[in-house]
């Protein structure tokens, strides 16, 4: 176990048409995205962590405590686990006001509250909703109350099951900033189930890729997304996530420079102040490679890089090339013909041309 490993989970769920079989170590802080297509077992895994799945056998250690050990007949029921759970649909109690919904869990916690209700209400911006009944709230407001309700119990582990999936894009964008604040201000591990690459790229620090009830890859978001050996299902949208700092604004051309370890990119003017952290995504398909620094091109983002690995892509026509840009990994998706044409091999220095930078904010 790594030093910051807090959750050790080994689960088996065997249903007639689905089997979950995983053995995982999850970090004790930060957001871990459980990512996969529908039917990959991510929600089942989350329910096993919560103790909601009664057919789940295995082992679960949380920060030194045993929550489940089927061999020894140990199973701590859900209501005795210090966790918060946010369901896909908000699941507020319809017979209770927002305030009473918030109080429901909070008043049942015996130990001292590490999180004050005022802070939670402020964090999620729901102070003006406290007296309302759930049926008088919008979908986004309901989900914010549901998140606040789970946080109000001062959980030691927060489990979120696609909390944005039931919402339209507008509501999603309304909640995402709150989730980012949550990630930055909470000191507890968060497991976040999602099938949206954008949500994962924006929120996660760690990622667990699931397919057909098994763990395909797990690790830090940056390193894991830069891997070339992921199953093809995950390589269609292959790309890396880079954490950068707003370095300078060019008011004349209305551009912003973002610095990251090993390089920088220029994007259209951002509203964020200098020094702010920003995440962006570079899709492999938006990266092209040249052996010499291209002159006379309209592409402004050119990064000096070294080839570290070349692997097959999702189609026979393409290959994925993993690059190292001064410590930051990058992936390019180019044709097999181009690979042979350029004689690409590990260790080769070249230039990566970035056609598009997708900012995640």
């Amino acid at each position, binding site marked *: 176990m790594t030093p910051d490993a807090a959750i050790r989970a080994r689960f088996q769920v065997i249903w007639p048409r689905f089997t979950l079989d995983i053995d995982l170590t999850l970090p004790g802080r930060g957001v871990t995205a459980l990512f996969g297509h529908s039917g990959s077992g991510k929600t089942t895994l989350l329910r096993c962590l*919560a*103790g*909601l799945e009664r057919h789940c056998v295995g082992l679960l250690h949380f920060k030194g405590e045993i929550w489940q050990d089927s061999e020894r007949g140990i199973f701590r*029921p*859900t*209501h*005795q686990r210090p*966790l*918060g*759970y946010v*369901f896909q*649909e*908000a*699941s*507020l*109690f*319809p*017979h209770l006001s927002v305030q009473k919904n918030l109080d*429901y*869990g909070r008043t*049942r*916690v015996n130990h001292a509250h590490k999180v004050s209700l005022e802070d939670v209400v402020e964090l999620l911006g729901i102070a003006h909703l406290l007296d309302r009944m*759930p*049926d008088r709230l919008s979908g986004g407001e*309901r989900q914010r109350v549901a998140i606040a*309700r*789970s946080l109000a*119990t001062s959980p030691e582990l927060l489990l979120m099951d696609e909390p944005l999936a039931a919402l339209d894009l507008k509501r999603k964008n309304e909640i995402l900033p709150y989730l980012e604040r949550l990630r930055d201000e909470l000191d507890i591990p968060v497991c976040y189930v999602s099938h949206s690459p954008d949500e994962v790229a924006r929120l996660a620090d760690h990622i667990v890729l699931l397919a057909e009830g098994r763990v395909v890859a797990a690790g830090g978001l940056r390193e894991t997304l830069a891997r070339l050996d992921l199953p093809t299902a995950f390589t269609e949208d292959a790309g890396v996530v880079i954490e950068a700092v707003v370095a300078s604004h060019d008011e004349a051309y209305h551009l912003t420079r973002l610095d990251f370890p090993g390089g920088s990119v220029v994007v259209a003017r951002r509203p964020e102040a200098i020094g702010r952290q920003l995440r962006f995504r570079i899709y492999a398909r938006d990266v092209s490679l040249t052996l010499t620094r291209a002159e006379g091109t309209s592409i402004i983002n050119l990064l000096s890089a070294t080839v570290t690995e070349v692997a097959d892509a999702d189609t026979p026509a393409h290959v994925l090339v993993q690059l190292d840009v001064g410590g930051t990994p990058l992936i390019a998706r180019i044709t097999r013909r181009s690979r042979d044409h350029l004689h690409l091999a590990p260790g080769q220095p070249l230039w990566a041309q970035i056609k598009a930078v997708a900012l995640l904010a």
Partner: protein
Amino acid sequence: MLSAVDLAAIWLTIKLATITTAILLIVGTPIAWWLARTRSRFKGLIGAIVALPLVLPPTVLGFYLLITLGPHGPVGQFTQWLGIGLLPFTFAGLVVASVFYSLPFVVQPLQLAFEAIGPRPLEVAATLRAGPWNSFFTVVIPLAKPGFITAAILGFTHTIGEFGVVLMIGGNIPEKTRVVSVQIYDHVEALEYAEAHVLAGGLLLFSFLVLLALYSRKGTRVWQ
């Protein structure tokens, strides 16, 4: 307009229906909960047994209850052994019979209400530290309130309307087992149509008003 005998019958009927409804809510709730949540293979069997009084002639139910509660029946011997004597032709016997007779009218609305709630609210409650009993009282009962109201009304009115079982198990003893429906029968037998009209009309009006209230109620609040 109402004689003392009529008034006694009305009072006895209300007493019977109230006690029966109270017992049914206590007995019916766990049965309905079990039926709504179980995956046991005995679910069909228990459900069918509970529903039997819906289709059986009351005389059949009354007949078997009479035998079971009677001096040679197992329950009868047990009650004698306990020293409380025999239940047939007593008010207590009437209550026991009414509970069986009206059981489906209480269990089924409750079962429907519990099924409509589904497992999710209980899971939510569990993640908010509420144990099973706690969440039953703070989440299930409030959410199933319309079901409880329906169950109580149907149990109460159905007990008031019973006749066959009363005759079989209770007989016709003034102030003990002579309820309104039996009293109406007596009036008609004695050709006292005016007196029968008062009681029958009253029962008709009562039943209609109760059902009117029941069916005019707004729908169950939807789970968010």
